[in-house]
């Protein structure tokens, strides 16, 4: 090994300038590679942001890719409150509010259930608990289509067809598989001795959860909240199957808007509408993305 080091030192020294040139070439290569991909990645975002402010005639004349020559805000207000979606002319506002009404409770409930389940399945194991965990985990992989008919049947029987409450129920049941998986895999790494010590000190089931587990949980709770929020907000399948018209969440309404108007090119209103639908999950990502990646690699994916 010493020999090898010596040899490489001798080789490098006379060729120092060459090595420096190669270094700069390498840097240039890395940045060009990243820049080319960055342009492709940013292009769609740029296009909808720019087009939501461009007047429609300008878009039609100059194409979708271009900077705004003049700013127009009318597309935003039309998309928000007066454009006709699914028979009513109130813009995407009702659908946006539906999505909030759906996503916020469903995220909170499924996260709490997941934390509770994860806590029990990692710290209060009983006979068969590993088998139960494996079964819950299967729910993560189940294709949504498998459950459509049974859900339609159940929602019909309990009178929740075409309601946001029905969607909340479905997302809670299906989402609990994910949140349980995330939380359980994270809590497994909390030392059992900590729990044992607390029990010797007289702490019970709930107190250990509130005083020990929850204070250690923020990293994984951020992951589950981001995962659930973006997943539920962006869901299309359940929204389009179980709700219609004004009761649809925004993701389902947007596809209706896009595929329903094949002839009329309403790029400006569509851009604003699409952006309105994308803003909440984007905000969540821009503020929480760092913790998301960190937490994901800590606990969720093993």
């Amino acid at each position, binding site marked *: 090994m010493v020999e090898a080091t010596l040899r490489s030192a001798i080789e490098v020294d006379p060729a120092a300038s060459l090595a420096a040139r190669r270094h700069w070439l390498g840097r240039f290569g890395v940045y060009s590679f990243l820049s080319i991909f960055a342009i492709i990645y940013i292009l769609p975002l740029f296009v909808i942001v720019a087009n939501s402010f461009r007047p429609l005639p300008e878009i039609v004349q100059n194409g979708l890719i271009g900077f705004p020559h003049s700013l127009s805000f009318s597309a935003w207000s039309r998309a928000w409150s007066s454009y006709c979606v699914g028979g009513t002319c109130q813009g995407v506002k009702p659908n946006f509010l539906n999505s909030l009404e759906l996503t916020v409770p469903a995220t909170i409930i499924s996260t709490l259930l997941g934390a509770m389940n994860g806590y029990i399945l990692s710290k209060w194991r009983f006979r068969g608990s590993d088998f139960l965990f494996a*079964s819950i985990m299967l729910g993560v992989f189940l294709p949504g289509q498998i459950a459509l008919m049974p859900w339609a049947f159940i929602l019909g029987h309990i009178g929740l067809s075409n309601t946001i409450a029905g969607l909340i129920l479905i997302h809670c049941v299906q989402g609990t598989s994910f949140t349980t998986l995330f939380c359980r895999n994270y809590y497994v790494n909390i030392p059992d001795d900590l729990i044992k010590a607390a029990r010797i000190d007289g702490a019970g089931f709930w107190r250990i959860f509130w005083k020990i587990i929850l204070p250690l949980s923020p990293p994984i709770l951020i992951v589950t909240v981001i995962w659930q929020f973006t997943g539920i907000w962006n869901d299309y399948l359940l929204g389009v199957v179980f709700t219609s018209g004004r009761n649809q969440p925004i993701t389902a309404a947007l596809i209706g808007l896009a595929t329903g108007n094949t002839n009329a090119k309403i790029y400006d209103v569509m851009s604003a509408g699409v952006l309105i639908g994308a803003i909440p999950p984007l905000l969540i990502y821009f503020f929480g993305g760092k913790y998301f990646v960190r937490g994901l690699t800590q606990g969720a994916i093993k």
Partner: protein
Amino acid sequence: MTQAIVPAAVIEAPAGPTWRERLNRALPIIVLAPSLIASLVYVFGFAIWTFYISLSNSSLLPSYDFVGFHHYAALWSNTRWKIAYTNLFLFSGLYVVLGILVGLGLAIAIDQRVRAEALWRTIFLYPLAVSFAVTGSVWKWLYSPDAGIEFFVRSLGWTDFTFRLTTDRNTAIYAVIATGIWQSSGFAMALFLAGLRSVDPDLVKAAQIDGAGRFRTYRKVILPTIAPIFIAVAVIMLQFAIKTFDLVVALTDGGPGISTQFPANYVYDLMFQRGQIAEGAAGAIMMLAALAVVLVPYSLYLVWRKRQESGHG
């Protein structure tokens, strides 16, 4: 032994110590039970119910007259379904392989101590936050010849430039694949980057001292140590691929013709547009079968790896 103390709110009724102890021991199971039952009904009950429907003669409404595998035969003799399944294989293969290559390339580039690392990461990761509905709608415009990329390049002066993936039934599937990769290669990047960062720096140093160049160090030392991440990324992306639905609806709506049909789209159509729920259920079961093909070997691999690890201490 110590006696666990339960907050007063939990037990209000006066109960003997044995009662309390018993309740205490059962408490985790009692708390777990409701969501556990819901999950089990969802996972097993729903799958079995759908399987049963697929064997019945249901059409618009569920019925329970048993007809055997009739609907599976009907499904597999249908051109649209065969195209959907072929598309699924083509899509899965290219989407996973190219997605991993792009993600790995980006992760390695970012790992070269670049400036403004957080900015690059955010740029490549943000598509993951956006729904397929949004992704599909925007890319549909960019692919469209009369306003998108082709129009733009032509307006720059290259007047016979053509870029019209989505209007040709032979190439439309590649537009779906490219858009899928755009959406989720950032996810692969994030996982690979975390993996690269977890490689023991001494290992890398040792390789460099031994005279290995940067390329060789990656190929021989770093990438083999993060092999499990490759498998995890591949499995996660494969199960995304099998569930592909809204991307296609928003981007091509299955067209031109039926060239970009996917199983999920066809199942949806059978169940909710055509009122053939038995055949739709059969399609859903076939999707489950495709998932099993991916997940059963993966879980066996996980078990095997655990044994290896515990075997070597």
